[in-house]
């Protein structure tokens, strides 16, 4: 059984065909110019796959491939300088997009010269008569056809009309004037950029003061001071006990027991660096029963304000960069589709990659963002939009909308589904006379100026006209040229 494939057939399609074939012996035919078999790994894949599915393949009409693995005759250990040149790949390769240079002008043929000796037998008088006739014909041709020319300028009153309408846009849809429905395509573009901004967030960082106090127990009961118990200096600075300690009951009035314990300020800052001999209350105990005092000054309390990356910094950086990339993407899409219309708000931006070099709260003087956005634009044909909008206005008889001079705009107002949109279309229509200038030329050729004027008077939308004949003496003759190519007709808006 023969399986025939085109030059563009993909390898997995060939494998699928082989698998689905009911025959066990297959002739695989691929065109000589297929790039696929220029690479013999592909051929090896076909053979191995066929074997796996219990089939045998035979290639026909394929180019001889480049061998995929050899040492080209070189042998490790052998001096290469003694080897001859080698040619491992003799087979011609298929060409990539060959450019044919066949021009008609390059074809040569042998010319046959006719025998003209019979002409000598024609009498001289006949030659003279023929010459005069030919001269007269040529003179008439020059006078009536070649020499005269006419310039006809048709003037009209410029008119403009504005109109707008809701229009439905369907991506991949069809044009339907009755439903005010136009088709659209989408175009995607990826843009990326890197931006850096100063970090503005502030954060206080520092260390709490530390020291050691002695707790005095004047009460006649045992006291336990748990870890974390708050001790407060006379100036209101608070500390917590680093460890649990207990003090036995005092022996009686005027006596006390004492215990030493380390403390740490509850807040960072230098206010915790208290001098020696500062008194403290301990937890909720009455100072008459329990109090504390430090024998040495507290130290280590410090604080400073650092600059960090804030959430607002990253948000602002992203907003600015998204805006920049959006503008660049929109501009590029507009440039790529100069003759088409991309509605306002018709470019949808999604962020596909976003990488910051610093986390929120991280100390840094600046933060950088690498951003990639995908812009997806709705692209409309200007003529579709004009065709719908033109139907929403009344156009005076004899006029039409000039597509090249009119201005259109569209704003996307609603996304109904992924492929359906509503838009508000607007047109500033420039109206021009609906005349076919070629038809006018035909109707003017070989006419008298009187007949030409009557015809031009009958044209709707034309307010005035001038007819200029060249050379000027033809004005006296009063005929327009026979040849339409010698009549120049143009429209001009009345100033």
């Amino acid at each position, binding site marked *: 059984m023969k399986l025939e494939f085109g030059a563009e057939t993909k390898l997995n399609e060939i494998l699928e065909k082989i698998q689905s074939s009911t025959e066990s012996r297959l002739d695989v035919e691929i065109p000589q110019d297929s790039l696929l078999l220029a690479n013999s790994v592909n051929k090896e894949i076909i053979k191995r796959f066929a074997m796996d599915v219990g089939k045998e393949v035979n290639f026909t009409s394929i180019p001889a491939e480049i061998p995929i693995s050899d040492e080209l005759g070189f042998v490790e250990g052998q001096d*290469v300088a003694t080897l001859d040149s080698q040619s491992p790949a003799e087979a011609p390769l298929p060409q990539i997009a060959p450019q044919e240079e066949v021009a008609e002008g390059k074809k040569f043929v042998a010319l046959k010269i006719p025998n003209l000796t019979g002409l000598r037998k024609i009498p001289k008088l006949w030659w003279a008569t023929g010459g005069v006739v030919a001269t007269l014909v040529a003179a008439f041709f020059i006078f009536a056809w070649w020499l005269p020319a006419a310039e006809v300028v048709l003037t009209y009153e410029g008119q403009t009309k504005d109109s707008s309408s809701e229009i439905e846009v369907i991506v991949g849809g069809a044009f339907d004037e009755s439903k005010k429905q136009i088709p659209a395509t989408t175009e995607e573009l990826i843009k990326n950029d890197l931006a850096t901004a100063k970090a503005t967030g502030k954060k206080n960082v520092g260390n709490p003061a530390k020291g050691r106090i002695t707790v005095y127990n004047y009460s006649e009961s045992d006291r336990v001071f748990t870890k974390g118990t708050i001790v407060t200096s006379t100036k209101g600075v608070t500390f917590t006990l680093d460890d649990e300690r207990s003090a036995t009951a005092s022996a009686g009035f005027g006596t006390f027991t004492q215990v030493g314990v380390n403390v740490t300020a509850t807040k960072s800052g230098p206010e915790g660096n208290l001098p020696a001999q500062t008194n403290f209350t301990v937890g909720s105990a009455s100072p008459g029963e329990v109090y504390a005092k430090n024998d040495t000054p507290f130290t280590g309390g410090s604080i400073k304000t650092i600059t960090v990356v804030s959430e607002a910094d990253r948000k602002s950086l992203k907003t600015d960069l998204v805006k920049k990339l959006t503008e660049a993407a929109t501009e590029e899409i507009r440039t790529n589709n100069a003759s088409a219309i991309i509605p306002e708000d018709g470019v949808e931006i999604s962020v596909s990659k976003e990488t910051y070099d610093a986390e929120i709260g991280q100390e840094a003087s600046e933060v950088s963002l690498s951003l990639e956005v995908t812009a997806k634009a709705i692209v409309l044909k200007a003529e579709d939009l004009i065709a719908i909008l033109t139907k929403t206005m009344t156009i005076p008889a004899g006029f039409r909308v000039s597509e090249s001079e009119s201005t259109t705009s569209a704003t996307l107002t609603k996304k109904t589904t992924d492929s359906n949109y509503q838009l508000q279309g607007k047109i500033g229509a420039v109206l021009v006379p609906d005349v076919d200038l070629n038809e006018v030329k035909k109707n003017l050729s070989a006419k008298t100026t009187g007949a030409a004027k009557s015809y031009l008077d009958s044209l709707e939308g034309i307010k005035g006209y001038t007819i200029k004949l060249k050379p000027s003496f033809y004005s006296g003759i009063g005929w327009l040229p026979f040849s339409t190519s010698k009549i120049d007709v143009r429209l001009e808006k009345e100033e």
Partner: protein
Amino acid sequence: MNPFKKLLPHSKGKSNNFLVVEIGLGRVTAAIYKAGDSRPVQVVAGRKNFSTYENIFEACLQAIDALAAINENIPRKAILGVSDGIMRTTTTVASYSRPNPSEAVDTQEVEKVLEQIAAATKAEPLKVFFSTVASAKIDEASVTNPVGLKGEKASLACFVAFKAPEELAVFDKLIEELELSVNKVVPTSFAVSRLVLKKNLNDALLLRVGKEKSEGALLSEGHIYEILPFDLGVSGLSYLSIGVEAIISLLEKEKRPQTIWLYPDEDDVDLKLVAEKLSAFPWQEKLSYQEVPQIVSEALESDVAEADIGILALANEFLEG
């Protein structure tokens, strides 16, 4: 008039930036790089997908156009990386006795050997576009670069890459059109192999997986052996393992790689699916493996997108000259 001239104004200030243009299996990437502390740093990149190899010229222009839209100063200094198409590569071990063993190998000696190998290795109608010493042995000491070493017995593994003249003409046209100063045209898989060899992965199959195509680079005994593109990608996932089988079967059984390292041609190629498919392949039955080879799909560089490994490797090549 060259429409790209306005996009490529001549840079007035001195800049160490350079351009990397990489023609992948399904897309062209144009990126500006600069030298970094430990490796090249990407400044900005532009990309353009292409459907057939015939469209690469337009795709290259559009990728650079996209780049120019972001960064007006496109560097002239550039490196061009190529994949796929009609390409053939070969590594030839050139062994010889050095006439003056007491003198160190210099670049002229290496170039002379490369010239001899390139001249002797004919693959008509393909043309040589890249040749280099992939690894070397001087008196049995293995090195990546023999320059500066003394010894008598030299064996240089010379890697030579060929391409169809039509494709090389397209590259020339591109370089001329963009007025680039290209220091070399390198097979991307070769550049990636140099990165991988630095990680001491001496015997491996590097498999670049695209949507429609893939490209394998066989590493054997510490140097690249051959680059082999084929026309199966994730769109024909169920057949991909046959492509791998076809490539590995080229090596003798004892030299077959125990590691298959995957990297994507584009961001949306799902390597996990590819790894699953290859893990399920009957390695023992088809290729006489004792154990399933290690299939790695993790990024080679942790903070570089997997699909950007090719351009990073090319940027590295540029800086290493």
